[in-house]
């Protein structure tokens, strides 16, 4: 790892980290602020929800979640946070080397006396630090929002912490896969369509898991692996987490291999 590349890259991410963290915090606080009135009038609310078609409830992740419980309500909010975190991580992965190549300044670093592996590892560590910083802010915000708006409801701290902790692995998957995609493709001109596609694609795959019946296609989606409903019910499925970690390691390993053989496109 090279210190100046790391610091340079980390600084470049900082703005975006603050924006994502800010969005996550507002999402959390707006959602959680509604919990007191929600829980006070749960009977009426459940009636409304029962009238919804089950497909719609599923699409919003309401299938398994009991909104009257604090864990369930937070889990509902958590899904939307996951979406944001997925987009952010995919953005960082997809853009890690492709943004510089698209902006045609990749030559700057690559003509310095640095090994490609050093460049890539410094960039990866800077991106991961940025993701971790986002998670840290997200954790603190979540705990604060829950404590402020729990309105006397008891909740299982372990379950909440398990959900919060899971976002690290969850983001790693999107980051790793995003990075790998950007290196397999010869050129990624803009990152956002890809990261939105990756995040929403896997989300949709997860929420509509029922429609594939016996084919368990939904298990391709990290959203399924870290489904808050399941975490509340059974905790984390360790096997799936291990699969995810393996995916991350393989993606990053392959990325190193590809990057070291990559022809850096010429500006002309």
């Amino acid at each position, binding site marked *: 790892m090279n210190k100046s590349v790391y610091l340079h890259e980390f600084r470049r991410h900082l703005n975006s980290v603050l924006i994502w963290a800010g969005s996550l915090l507002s999402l959390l606080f707006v959602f959680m602020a509604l919990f007191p009135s929600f829980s006070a009038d749960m009977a009426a609310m459940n009636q409304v929800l029962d009238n919804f078609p089950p497909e719609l409830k599923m699409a919003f992740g309401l299938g398994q979640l009991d909104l009257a419980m604090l864990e369930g309500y937070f889990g509902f909010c958590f899904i939307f946070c996951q979406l944001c975190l997925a987009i952010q991580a995919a953005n960082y992965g997809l853009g890690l080397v492709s943004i510089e190549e698209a*902006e045609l300044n990749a030559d700057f670093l690559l*003509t310095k*006396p*640095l090994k490609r592996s050093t460049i890539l590892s410094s960039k990866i560590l800077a991106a991961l630090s940025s993701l971790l910083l986002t998670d840290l802010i997200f954790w603190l915000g979540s705990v604060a929002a829950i404590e402020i708006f729990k309105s006397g409801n008891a909740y299982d701290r372990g379950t909440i912490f398990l959900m919060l902790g899971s976002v690290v692995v969850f983001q790693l998957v999107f980051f790793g896969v995003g990075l790998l995609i950007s290196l397999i493709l010869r050129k990624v001109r803009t990152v956002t369509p890809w990261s939105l596609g990756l995040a929403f694609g896997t989300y949709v795959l997860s929420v509509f898991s029922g429609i594939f019946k016996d084919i368990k296609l939904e298990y391709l989606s990290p959203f399924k692996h870290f489904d808050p409903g399941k975490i509340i019910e059974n905790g984390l499925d360790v096997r799936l987490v291990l699969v995810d970690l393996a995916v991350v390691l393989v993606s990053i390993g392959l990325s190193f291999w590809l990057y070291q053989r990559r022809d850096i496109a*010429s*500006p*002309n």
Partner: protein
Amino acid sequence: MNIIDVQNLTKYYGKSRGVENLSFTVNEGEIFGFIGPNGAGKSTTIRLLLSLIYPTSGQATIFGKDVTKAGPEIRQNIGYLPSEVFYYDDMRVRDLLDYSASFYPGDHRERTAYLVDVMELEMNRKIRDLSYGNKKKVGIVQGLLHNPPLLFLDEPTSGLDPLMQRKFFDLIREENKKGVTVFFSSHFLGEVQRICDRVGIIREGRMVEVSDIRTLQKSNYKKIRFISQGAEVDLALPGMSNLQKQGDWTEFFYSGDINLVLGRLGSLQLEDLSIEEPTLEEIFMHYYE
């Protein structure tokens, strides 16, 4: 000693040609001009030498080390000015130069200050706000600030005004006097003529000729021009090329026995005659016929 040694270097992008069977050497302490039109493979060659891209076949060494294996080590001693300079837009000039200097051991502040002064660069401006020529200057400074013994300049003068070009050439000459080897790519011959010792001409991915700039000029091509009234002149001589006629006036290139052509011209009733060294530009056009 050969600073750069290129042997049968070939690069294909998929099926399209980058360069083919390129072989040449650059000696220590010389300024080597690398000439060719756009798309001839100049940038490809430089990118291969900097291991930004990898060769399909063949090999190249710099300082005696293989470019694909010892890239970082070689780049320690290289300064590179890309043909089009795109740097991190939101950085200030000062920060970019500091960032660049941080990759080379030692203290480069004094040297940077000197170069910034020569190139009249404003350190506190954001890269985004710089004109094309000013970005180019940033490129020049970041390429020179670590005192590299080998410089790669890829069309360095485009975007610089004539005054700046002259300062730049002075700077390069000054470096060269200190023993710095320069690899200077250009499609503009005048400037190569001004500064280079030897020149390689690349065309459609192949090296057409490598020669001393004086030999090239004196490659016993003469530009012969005369005015003769009256009878239609038939000058079918071997070694003649680029024959142009306009009224009384005839012009052609000639390479061969000068007595032969003089004998033939002597038999004509001439009003005027000039025999000149062709400019590099004209020689160059000759290679592109």
